[in-house]
């Protein structure tokens, strides 16, 4: 029996900056994890990933990552996604350094 589907988000890196981005419900690429569209249906998730992959002029390497419902929006499940959403631990660089993370559109 196949494993039950767990909620996902679509994430990638921005083509120009290389920064981590998340696909939103209204088809934007946001820099913030909590803005991502939480995909709770497997078929819908597959379609959203295909739609993301067609945007190769803006993003690189789209994939589905596990996420869960959080107080402000989807939150990471795995520590790798938590690091991607925050930045490195040795310097305050990356997303954690941005006081006002804005959308990448």
């Amino acid at each position: 029996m196949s494993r039950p589907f767990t909620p996902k988000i679509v994430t990638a890196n921005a083509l120009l900056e290389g920064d981590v981005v998340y696909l939103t419900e209204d088809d934007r690429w946001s820099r913030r994890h909590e803005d991502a569209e939480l995909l709770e249906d497997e078929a819908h998730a597959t379609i959203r990933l295909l739609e993301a992959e067609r945007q190769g002029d803006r993003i690189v390497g789209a994939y589905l990552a596990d996420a869960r419902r959080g107080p402000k929006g989807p939150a990471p499940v795995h520590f790798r996604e938590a690091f991607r959403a925050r930045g490195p631990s040795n310097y305050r660089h990356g997303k954690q350094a941005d006081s006002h993370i804005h959308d990448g559109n």
Partner: protein
Amino acid sequence: MYRYDEFDAAFLAKRNEQFRAQVERRIEGALTEEEFKPLRLMNGLYLQLHAYMLRVAIPYGSLDSAKMRKLAEIAERWDKGYGHFTTRQNIQYNWPRLRDVPDMLDALAEAGLHAIQTSGNTIRNVTSDHFAGAAADEIADPRPYAELIRQWSTDHPEFQFLPRKFKIAITGSPNDRAVTRAHDIGLRMVERDGRAGFEVIVGGGLGRTPMIGKVVRDFLPEGELLPYLEAVLHVYNRHGRRDNKYKARIKITVHETGIEAIREEIEAAFAVTRAEFEGVDENALERIRARFRAPSLVPGGAGAYEDARLNPAFRAWADSNLAEHRDPDHAIVTISLKAPGETPGDATAGQMRVMADLAERFGYDELRISHQQNVILPHVRKADLAEVYEELKAAGLATANVGLASDIIACPGMDYCALATARSIPVAQQLAKRIEDLRIEHEVGPLQIKISGCINACGHHHVGHIGILGLDRGGVETYQITLGGDATETAAIGERTGPGFSFEEIVPAIERLMLAYLEVREDESETFLDAYRRLGPHPFKEALYGPEKRRDAA
């Protein structure tokens, strides 16, 4: 230091122009990522966890002050003001933007630097002994040979699509400081009947299947180096396993074919290549030698060094960070990039400039980067050591820990690397801080701790006296320990101790290992590695996991 001729400069300019056009076409949408990826990788541009990463080659680890200042300028102008020196004598910039990379490469070319073949299934940056040209035990400077290999392998059409990446290391000394036995090809200079030549080692490598290389030729006359290397590459290109990425390195080819069969095939290929070269390589080597500036060492002044040793802080630094130079009035200075709490191998643009200034003023304009992620001033007059030390201290660069427990190698791990399965940098930071707080590293003595954040082993954990490997076990960072590894001419792969430790547990576990060593060693002259070799893993496992009975019950 090798100085580029017109051909080298024109080659680099042309290559950068091509890449600039490729980047433009990618941004315009004329190239897909699938098409662009191999092109960017050929120019050292990766896409990592948070950003692009540009890996710049520091050929055989040699720099001069102009090159070091250029690295500082790049860090400030296009990155976040620092660079990360790696275990393969490269420097990595962690935050470049795609549009800026062509400008960065042009700026690097102004100083004769590049990022060519720092990635991809090609012959990578040739690494060398970081004491090359200065070491007291050296037969000859290996760098002209390394430059010869670089020129031969750069854009060599036959070796652009190898089964997998290919790493060559070369040392001119019998004492191996270049980890030659853990490379696809290791070259160790030896003498026979008064002639210089190389012991050729093939099939070493770390990663998922660590192997110590095997001697395929115990003496190769120096003049036959390139045809022999080409013969090895022919054989590898023919038999390397392109069907399986994890079995594609030459170590697997050697392992599956057997060293005798491989040797026969290489010798057969060599009979052909030797005839084909017709002395072109020897002429090239002569031309390269002529373009290496050797420093004219100024004699005298060693007495001042003995006086300076009366200062205990200077003496502690000198005892750990100096190595014997071939000239008695000079010393080799290792500048530690391992201040406790800092990121191993990182240097700020300001620190790079300090090191460049010191090289220019006191070091015959020469610098080296070591695979241990430190920076070396290979030729410093003993008369100048006290002043060099004071200036290093002022720049936060006088950490006296070279070869000791807090001189930790660590790969970027999951703080940056897309392949990593766990973090390595914060483990190194916390461990070095703990060692500093305990004040035991001088008592513990020579100890190499090496940390990798995944099985690919960029942090050389397999050959650490203590190796730490970070893994993802069920969504939790877990650290496995190996003991007894050795990166030198007596190379050995470390043995796993048992179950792994969590991020919180790993630093106390390493502390227990050091304390156990102090308990069980015969006397101060027995190093950690010697004690492990004498006693085996038992006392160290007890220190990690408790008495055996309790372990069985658990």
